[in-house]
């Protein structure tokens, strides 16, 4: 049911088709029943009025015959009564007419039976309401009713009745009944043909609707399909355009849109290529002279013992600044690579626990110099992940450097945790800390929490920004928590397998001891 509904919701064809079917069925039902009603009413009314006038004539004729016969004093009405009832009978073969004669007083007088009917019509079939009315008014009256026969046959029809005066015999009720059998069969025939016509019409309407729909929907389907493949990146796909109708115009407009889109994209791609090219050119042009400078300064530096103290100091400054410049250049190029979206992962399956542990070991000496220590938690097991080890190492080194720099000689905790989809590494210090309003800003390029402390350390100001980009490139993220004077916690989380999204983060950046 659910599936049917969703299919219905997604298919324009089915929607329009069933709407057309619904509306045409309703329309044809109403028109059909209206026409049927009118025709059958007309036929019945016609029959009723003709029956009344025929009935009136038949009764008058019977009255007339009784009157004529009555002129003979010694008349026996038996034959006439029989004839009146039977004469009605003869023509009744064709017109469906029956006659009934009742003695109002209920007794047999002068050879006329008190009750006589034609063709085994049950005398009780004459509606008693009509009989009462006639007896009361003695005038001609009529009432529709069923012609019931002794053999059980029942046919709808009309009864016309009147009191007739028979000389010396008294008052008799005479009824003429006409059945509607012929009319009913006509009405039935009309009904059947109306049904047939209705079905045919509905079928035709639906056939037309489906042909029209197919004509209109097919191009829309093609357009949707082409649009989907454009979205998927196939910018060369176009719609086939035939003729000059609205569908063709849709196709033309669609194709124009696709062309414009493709041009825009190739323009942007071109721009990005120019940018990448520029970055790579700058890289080459700057790096070669820098290498020469670097080597020259190294040679000078290693010979500084033989220099005058001021020149020796200058040689030291020269070298350290060149080193800083190198780092800055390296970071800048990395950032431009991210901007140009030229950064690609070089993936390997690596044990990230070992990788982090080794980074921490490398920093042990530096940490000691700063009067702090690195404490590892949860590094007993290996954790294999698909990652670019060069980048992950860069992130970890960066976060550790950062933590050590801001540790205020208190220890730094390095935690690792995993779940089925992701691994997190948290680097927690108990030093300077970061105020909440700066949490999101720490990843901004060249952002410094406290401008006065700015360049005490050698950092380029791009480290955290690059770290964040590296994490995002892996499909992961770095989250930060901090509080002034309490410390900070940076948590790197990356998925274990490329393309498999992180279901939940194994390690929260908010320390359990805080708040």
């Amino acid at each position, binding site marked *: 049911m659910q599936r049917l509904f969703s299919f219905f919701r997604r298919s324009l064809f089915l929607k329009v088709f069933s709407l057309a079917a619904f509306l045409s069925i309703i329309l044809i039902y109403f028109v059909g029943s209206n026409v049927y009603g009118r025709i059958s009413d007309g036929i019945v009314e016609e029959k009723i009025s003709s029956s009344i006038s025929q009935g009136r004539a038949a009764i008058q004729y019977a009255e007339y015959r009784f009157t004529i016969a009555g002129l003979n004093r010694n008349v026996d009405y038996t034959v006439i009564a029989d004839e009146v009832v039977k004469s009605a009978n003869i023509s009744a073969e064709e017109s469906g007419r029956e006659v009934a004669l009742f003695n109002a007083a209920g007794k047999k007088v002068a050879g006329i039976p008190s009750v006589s009917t034609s063709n085994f019509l049950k005398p009780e079939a004459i509606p008693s309401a009509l009989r009462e009315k006639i007896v009361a008014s003695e005038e001609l009256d009529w009432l529709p009713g069923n012609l019931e026969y002794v053999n059980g046959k029942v046919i709808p029809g009309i009864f016309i009745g009147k009191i007739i005066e028979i000389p010396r015999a008294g008052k008799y009720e005479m009824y003429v009944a006409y059945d509607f059998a012929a009319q009913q069969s006509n009405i039935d025939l009309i009904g059947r043909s109306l049904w047939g016509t209705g079905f045919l019409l509905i079928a035709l309407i639906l056939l037309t609707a489906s042909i029209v729909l197919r004509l209109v929907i097919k191009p829309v389907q093609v357009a949707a399909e082409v649009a989907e493949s454009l979205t998927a990146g196939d910018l060369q796909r176009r719609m086939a355009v035939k003729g000059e109708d609205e569908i063709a115009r849709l196709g033309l407009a669609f194709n124009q849109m696709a062309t414009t889109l493709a041009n825009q994209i190739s323009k942007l791609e071109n721009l990005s290529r120019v940018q990448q090219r520029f970055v790579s050119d700058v890289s*080459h042009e700057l*790096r070669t002279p820098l290498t020469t400078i670097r080597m020259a300064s190294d040679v000078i530096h290693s010979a500084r013992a033989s220099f005058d103290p001021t020149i020796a100091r200058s040689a030291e400054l020269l070298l350290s600044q060149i080193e800083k410049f190198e780092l800055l250049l390296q970071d800048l190029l990395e950032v431009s*690579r991210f901007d140009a979206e030229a950064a690609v992962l*070089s993936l390997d399956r690596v044990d990230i626990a070992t990788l982090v542990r080794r980074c921490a070991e490398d920093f042990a000496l530096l940490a000691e110099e700063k009067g702090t220590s690195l404490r590892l938690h949860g590094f007993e097991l290996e954790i294999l992940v698909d990652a670019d080890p060069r980048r992950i190492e860069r992130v970890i080194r960066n976060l550790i450097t950062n933590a050590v720099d801001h540790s205020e000689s208190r220890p730094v905790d390095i935690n690792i945790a995993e779940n089925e989809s992701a691994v997190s590494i948290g680097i927690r210090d108990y030093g300077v800390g970061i105020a909440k309003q700066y949490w999101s800003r720490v990843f901004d390029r060249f952002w410094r929490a406290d401008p006065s402390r700015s360049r005490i350390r050698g950092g380029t100001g791009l480290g955290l920004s690059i770290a964040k980009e590296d994490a995002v490139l892996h499909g992961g993220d770095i989250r930060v928590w901090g509080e002034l004077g309490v410390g900070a916690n940076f948590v790197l989380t990356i998925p274990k397998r490329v393309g498999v999204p992180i279901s939940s983060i194994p390690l929260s950046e908010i320390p359990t001891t805080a708040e």
Partner: protein
Amino acid sequence: MTSIMVVDDDQDLAEMLGIVLNGVGMEVDLVSRGDEAVEIFRNSQPDLVLLDIMLPGTDGIEVCREIRKHSTRVPIVMLTAKSDTHDIVKGLEAGADDYMVKPFKPSELVARIRTRLRRAGGDINGNLTIGDLAIDIVEHTVSRGGKEIPLTRLEFDLLVALAKEPGRVFTREALLGEVWGYRHSTDTRLVNVHIQRLRAKIEHDAENPTIVLTVRGVGYKAGGSGARP
């Protein structure tokens, strides 16, 4: 005296390289054009080539390929101004053994050159076998069924490192330390590319290696010495 051929179009850098390398007792040949490099290489037969990638005339990658045609033995270290994966892998695939990204520390360059010139397996007596290959440490050759397989020095070093300790699983980092002399590096591209090149030369079917095996998620190890055809 060790002779180094430096191919770089930047005269000043080349001269500076000369000063530094002369300072540690190496002799330097300077070449500034790619198209001259191969000719000079054939005449002077240097012990090692330092090769810039971006060169006028023939580019460094092409020069590298040409030099490899003449000598499988000579170590080639690329000097590159780019750290983009693409260029480095292309250079390694063309036959370079190692690379240095400019700007580099002179001491690092010297260390790298010395590693490349060191003879592998110097600590081993006799010969080694790996799979159905025989490694002659003294002659520095690898042969299968008496037929020598020409390997570069680096490929030889790599094979010896694995064959020395059959069964041990080497992480890529361990191989970087053992063969390239990096104390600390995670640039596993070097290992991956060279393992591939080595397999192409020594395996019966490089797609289904039996001599240098991959241990998924960890690294590589030597295949069982029981020779399989």
